[in-house]
């Protein structure tokens, strides 16, 4: 091979390496950017008058007089649309049977769409479920619903080989020649006057409980559950892990027993997270019966076992990184080994130990599989501190799964799901970043 080709190969090898690192960075961006972008819309969005109605009725928040004024204003515009419906109903009753049957179904769809858009008609029955009591609270959703009102979705099955394609048919064409035709352009033009959208920052998304299984309201119970579980896990795992690390670094003698313990540690680190869940169910709940059924306590214990190896390893590394001179100086002054460990080595290693602890805290907050069988419920209110021993809690990680895959209106509440993912990712990444910064400062300090 001549020199030119060898150089070419060398350069392409370098390019390959940099390329794969760039791909990893891109992946991080590709995952994070949509989560951040869509997650923010859970807090900041164009809220309609329905949103303000909801806030006042459910949480007693907002200015009552201002709200009354807005309701009157929007009702004035809405009443014209309702008048058109009434007019068409009168018109329909005077038609012959065949025509009535033709319009009946179409008219029902129009009425349903309008109800989904604006909420139940004033003066009618008040629906049981909160989700039907209000119209669209978010302007972006309202625009989607408006499209549903104006156009009917149909499927094209004409090509038997390919998948069916969807296409849209204007609803107003179906009512040609009747008085209802006027409704569609009227609603389309006056929707903003009916819903009065304005930019809203809804901090309640973080601090409110959910209403009607996350259709409305916020995610505070989930955030609180995540915090409880993660801190509970740390309470068990952190002291144990640090003591074990002290033993491994200061007292353990090389030998069969010690290597066995080390193997046990790395085995524990490699156990799949779902197996921790099974173990938590079989041991903490079914055997020890720490609680009747799922509880925060059982979940915390399970998570604690999961993060224990990480804490031990990082604490060991931090203790080993303490310069030998510290130890020698302390021993030289006549203090005992235990005294040296407690007063000299542990304080010096503390930032490093904390770094590992913070990373483990993030891991405990983000993990889902161990808490599925031990602590998590789908819907629930925030629990008090006294209930942690016997009641389960909703948690961010579990509810993201639950809302995205099992909720009956999963595609309607994407903004809530994104908001939850953003909250979880923010908690975990903030913890990790503070660990990274902490570590950078330690390494600077150790370098002197």
């Amino acid at each position: 091979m001549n020199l030119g080709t060898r150089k070419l190969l060398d350069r392409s090898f370098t390019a390959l390496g940099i390329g794969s690192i760039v791909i990893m960075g891109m992946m991080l961006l590709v995952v994070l950017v949509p989560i951040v972008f869509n997650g923010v819309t859970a807090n900041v969005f164009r809220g309609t008058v329905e949103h303000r109605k909801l806030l006042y009725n459910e949480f007693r928040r907002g200015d009552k007089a201002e709200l009354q004024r807005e309701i009157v204003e929007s009702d004035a515009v809405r009443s014209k649309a309702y008048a058109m419906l009434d007019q068409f109903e009168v018109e329909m009753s005077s038609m012959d049977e065949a025509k009535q049957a033709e319009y009946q179904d179409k008219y029902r769809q129009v009425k349903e769409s309008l109800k989904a858009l604006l909420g139940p008609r004033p003066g009618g029955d008040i629906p049981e479920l909160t989700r039907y009591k209000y119209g669209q609270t978010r302007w972006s959703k309202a625009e989607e619903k408006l499209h549903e009102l104006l156009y009917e979705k149909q499927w094209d099955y004409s090509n038997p080989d390919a998948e069916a394609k969807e296409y849209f048919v204007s609803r107003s064409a179906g009512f040609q020649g009747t008085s209802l035709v006027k409704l569609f352009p009227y609603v389309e033009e006056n929707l903003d006057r009916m819903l009065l959208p304005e930019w809203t920052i809804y901090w309640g998304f973080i601090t409110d409980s959910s209403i009607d299984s996350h259709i409305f309201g916020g995610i505070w119970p989930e955030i609180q559950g995540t915090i409880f579980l993660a801190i509970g896990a740390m309470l068990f795992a952190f002291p144990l892990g640090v003591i074990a690390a002290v033993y491994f670094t200061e007292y353990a003698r090389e030998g069969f027993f010690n290597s066995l313990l080390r193997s046990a540690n790395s085995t524990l680190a490699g156990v799949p997270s779902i197996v921790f869940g099974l173990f938590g169910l079989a041991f903490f709940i079914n055997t020890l019966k720490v609680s009747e059924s799922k509880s925060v306590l059982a979940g915390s214990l399970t998570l604690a076992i999961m993060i224990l190896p990480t804490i031990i390893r990082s604490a060991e590394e931090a203790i080993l990184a303490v310069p030998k001179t510290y130890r020698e100086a302390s021993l030289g002054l006549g203090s005992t080994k235990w005294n040296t460990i407690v007063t000299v080595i542990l304080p010096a290693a503390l930032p490093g130990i904390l770094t590992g602890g913070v990373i483990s805290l993030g891991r405990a907050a983000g993990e889902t599989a161990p808490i599925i069988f031990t602590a998590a419920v789908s819907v629930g209110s925030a629990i008090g501190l006294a209930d942690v021993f016997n009641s389960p809690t909703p948690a961010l990680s579990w509810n993201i799964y639950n809302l995205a895959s099992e909720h009956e209106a999963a595609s309607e509440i994407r903004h809530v799901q994104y908001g939850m993912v953003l909250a979880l990712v923010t908690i975990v990444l903030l913890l990790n970043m503070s660990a990274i910064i902490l570590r950078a400062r330690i390494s600077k300090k150790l370098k002197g």
Partner: protein
Amino acid sequence: MNEEGNATAGRSSAFVVSARKRKLQKITKSAGESLLFLVAAIVAIIVLFIFYFVARDAIPFFQIRGFSEFFTSSEWYPADDPPRFGALAIIYGSLMVTAGSALIAVPMGIIAAICLSDVLPFSMRQYVKPVIEMLAAIPSVAFGFFALVILAPLLQSFGGPILMWTWWLIATPFLLLAVIVSSELLVMSISDDVRRQQVQRILASAFGIVAILLLFFVGRGLQKIEILTGTNALNVSIILSFMALPTIVSVSEDALQAVGRDMREGSYALGATRAETIIKIILPAASSGILAAVILGIMRALGETMVVWMASGNSSHIPDPWFNYLESVRTLTATIAGDMGEADQVTGSARFHVLFAMGLLLLVISFISNFISERIVVRQRKILSGQ
């Protein structure tokens, strides 16, 4: 009272400690040490407990149903009457997504690790490492959400074009390189300079045409593929590979760093380029450590629950043909997570215990691979320190 007396005695003559006090000190010391040992031993006890309690609930399943059905049948109807517990398709699904993610993550991870340890200047490394750490820190459920809500619809509606562009982007540079290098290698034996260059030009253009045809027709073939469901093995493999990457990168980077500077310098001194040094000297020396990294990364993918549960489609059948990554699959972890909700009510039934049998299978696999990777690391350390 007596204690106080001892203490004053100790203080008055600083270096003379009474026999009694020395004994007391010894006792406290050994008691403290054994207490520390007990705490450290908790880890081992936990591991034993995990094996015991998972096995305790797994064994009844094999007592009720025997071994053969679980491992050889792919009929998974646990809720039917009579129920059927064939887990072959589920085990196969686990292996399939793990293999798929390994195919992406292993080459990428090793190359990224090489780049981190040998190619990038130190100042750049500071910025790359946090990226890898953040990739490792993102919760699995967030990845699962991404796979389900963003990647799956994309694959479903633009699957063909995505595959085509991926093929073009990846294959073009490699084929270009292959054309140049192979034409170079084939003409090496010709001694006449002018003639060699002529032959090389002809060969390069011939190979180039073949490469372009290959690029074009494979790309067209890929473009025609219609992906029926976005929640499939391919989607999961891609996401899992990015979850396994941080492990592979950081562990193999450690292995590469462990290879001493002297080896690198020796190779450079003999006139080797950086790529040659890495491929012929450093990689073989670090190979066992890299193998350990690969095993750990693969275990991460095999044990992952949320991504596969949310985005694999959860259909328990062996894809047809067996390598069809565009079909939905179901994995062991997702089955445990998904079925426990219903099986929980009937503790003691085969339906409950079969999930523990799956957990035991996962546990045993992870234990064995962990053991192997640990042995490998220990051996490498011995070899490298021996040199």
